[in-house]
């Protein structure tokens, strides 16, 4: 049996997946309602596969994936989400996520994906695959300088609407340092304002992860 941990904050989804996995070769070892719970559950159950939603309270799915990928031993990861933006898609690809399934696709895809991942292959939802191919073409001619991990983190904070003081608190640096970082990011990406950076954050991040 392949052991699975499911992280999704919506009870309807959790119950449905539990029912779907009944009488299959998969065993639901645990469920989590938030990112923090997901990591704790992975640590406890040590599953073969983590099935994770992107939109969750406390820590989102991408934060969970980043944390787990920073470890030596990590379960195979399948993203189960209602929607995925370009930057998350490219980041997931860069982090070597094994599967991506959209909740609005054919529900049979989930089992198909789990089967593929179980067998050691990657499986990506056709809609996501098509978008990924489009982005390949778009970014093929990209000339912007690559972004450092800290710069990407800064852009994510700006996209969330955090002020410099809040960003400084999150990063454990001074407000002045955040201003210097931001100025460097503005220069690198050729943007003139914080608003422009926030609006185009998805594009910048996606391109940056694509380069990785």
């Amino acid at each position, binding site marked *: 049996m392949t052991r699975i941990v499911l992280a999704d904050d919506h009870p309807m989804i959790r119950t449905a997946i539990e*029912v779907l996995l009944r009488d299959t070769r998969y065993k639901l070892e645990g469920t989590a309602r938030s990112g923090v719970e997901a990591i704790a559950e992975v640590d406890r159950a040590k599953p073969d596969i983590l099935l994770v939603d992107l939109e969750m309270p406390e820590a989102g799915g991408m934060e969970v994936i980043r944390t787990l990928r920073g470890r030596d031993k990590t379960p195979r990861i399948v993203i189960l989400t209602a929607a995925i933006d370009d930057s998350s898609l490219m980041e997931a690809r860069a982090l070597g996520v094994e599967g991506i399934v959209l909740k609005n696709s054919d529900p049979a895809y989930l089992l198909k994906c789990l089967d593929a991942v179980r067998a050691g292959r990657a499986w990506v939802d056709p809609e996501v695959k098509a978008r990924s191919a489009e982005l390949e073409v778009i970014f093929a001619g990209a000339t912007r300088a690559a972004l450092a991990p800290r710069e990407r983190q800064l852009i994510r904070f700006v996209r969330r609407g955090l002020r410099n003081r809040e960003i400084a608190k999150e990063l454990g640096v001074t407000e002045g340092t955040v201003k210097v970082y931001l100025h460097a990011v503005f220069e690198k990406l050729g943007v003139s304002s914080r608003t422009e950076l926030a609006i185009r954050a998805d594009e910048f991040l996606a391109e940056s992860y694509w380069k990785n």
Partner: protein
Amino acid sequence: MGRGLQLYSGRVIALGRLLLATSFLGAIAVDISQPAQAPVETFGLLIAYLVFSALVAAATWDNWWLDAKLAGPTHAVDIGLFTVLVLLTEGYTSPFFVFFVFVLLSAAIRWGWRETALTAILLIILYLVAGLFAAHSAVGFPLYRSIIRTGHLVILSLILIWFGIHQWRARIPARSEDLLADPKLDRSPLETGLTAAMTALGASRGVFLWIEDAGEPQLATCEGSQLTVASFEPVKGMNLTSGAFLYDIARNRALTRDAQRNLLGRNPSDLIEPHLAADLKLDEGVAVPVRTGTGEGQLFLEDLPGLSTDHIDLGDQLSLDLAAHLQRHALLKAAGESAEARSRLTLARDLHDSVVQFLAGAAFRLEAMKRSEASGRTLEPELNELKKLMLQEQGELRGFITALRGGSQVAMADLVRDLGALADRLSRQWAIDCTFKSEAGDLMVSTNVHLDAHQLVREAVANAVRHAQATSVQIVLTADRRFVRLDLINNGAAFPSHGEQVELPQSLRERVEQAGGNIELSRGMDVTKLAIALPAGGPNR
């Protein structure tokens, strides 16, 4: 300033001069003791001055250009006449004192404090010189009288110089601030700005060209009662002046004021691009530059009754009022768009959390049933469970839609029924003990309150379960004519706090603020109480 007679400053000065000249002549003719010196020459001079005053009044009454051009020479004539009157007249009928006031007031009205001060100094020197001359040439002329009067003139001069600095500026008869106080969002600010400016100055024709940063130039035109706003071909080189100016395209005349309020004659083509003047069919009027943080433009007002140099001052006032009007409109529009965007985001979030997730879950369950059927298992319990969930979701969605498109008010009984059903549903959804109790009377509440209460309960319960691991939530509804109150008491962990400040869930706080209500969080006896008060009539937007 009378609207009927349109007595602008040039006309007031010309009329004042004419009346004074008539009065001097009459007074001296009646008083047999005057003129004290050279009677024939004095009468001749006063008659000549009367004719001069009449000619100036007639020539400048409807001609701002001549009024501006003759302002200096007529002022010099007035000063000269003052000096002669000091020499030739004495006693109570001597008009020199009144004339002194008139000449200084003219300077204060026309120019400003510098010119008033210079005029005052010149008049006092001339008065002293004339006094000295009279003391030398006439026996018994008391010099001390001239010195005392000079002191009086100095005091009066200081008062009039102060008046020139602070007091006088032509003012718009109907305050444009009032006319522009209501930036109607359903109309272009150019329309409302143009019509208000025309009303303020009584113009019959107006053109307002506006170029928003990174936007297409817009042109508002009003002739009589016909008002149009249309996009305009990109304008090159619309160099805005720092202040308003008068123009007469046909006669090739324009008048501006410099920083010292001196009137400067200009060529209109230096101020208005000739092709623009032709496109806009400009003739004669006042041009008003308008600048805001997001754009700039030029307002042209024509067919103005009694167009005068005062209109330069009036134009400068209009410029500030129009800029404030455009900015106020932009601010209101931005606030409206922001509220709309927030509503869209809230709606999207609600739909995502309810409908999208539910449908995805239902699809997975159907897939599971399909596989169960293939393995020969009975589907009835699964189907019944799914049907029940679907009916509940449908009921909730129907309530949501009804509230969205319904009338302005719903009965409290409907709200009580819906919240009771929601509490049951939340109990099952989160596997907790969620109870609902109503202590509200028979009232009508706004549909917004119905919608907000529904979403707030869903969100508050979800937060209590997700973040505080609550296993029981008690919901109590109370209401009076002013407020609908919801108390949600859960047995979960305390909310995170910074010092004594408890961190309220942001989305809850935002939703309550948008609804115009307030939210309070308290902790005690191992339970958390969230007290929400919503205005029963809905938000005061």
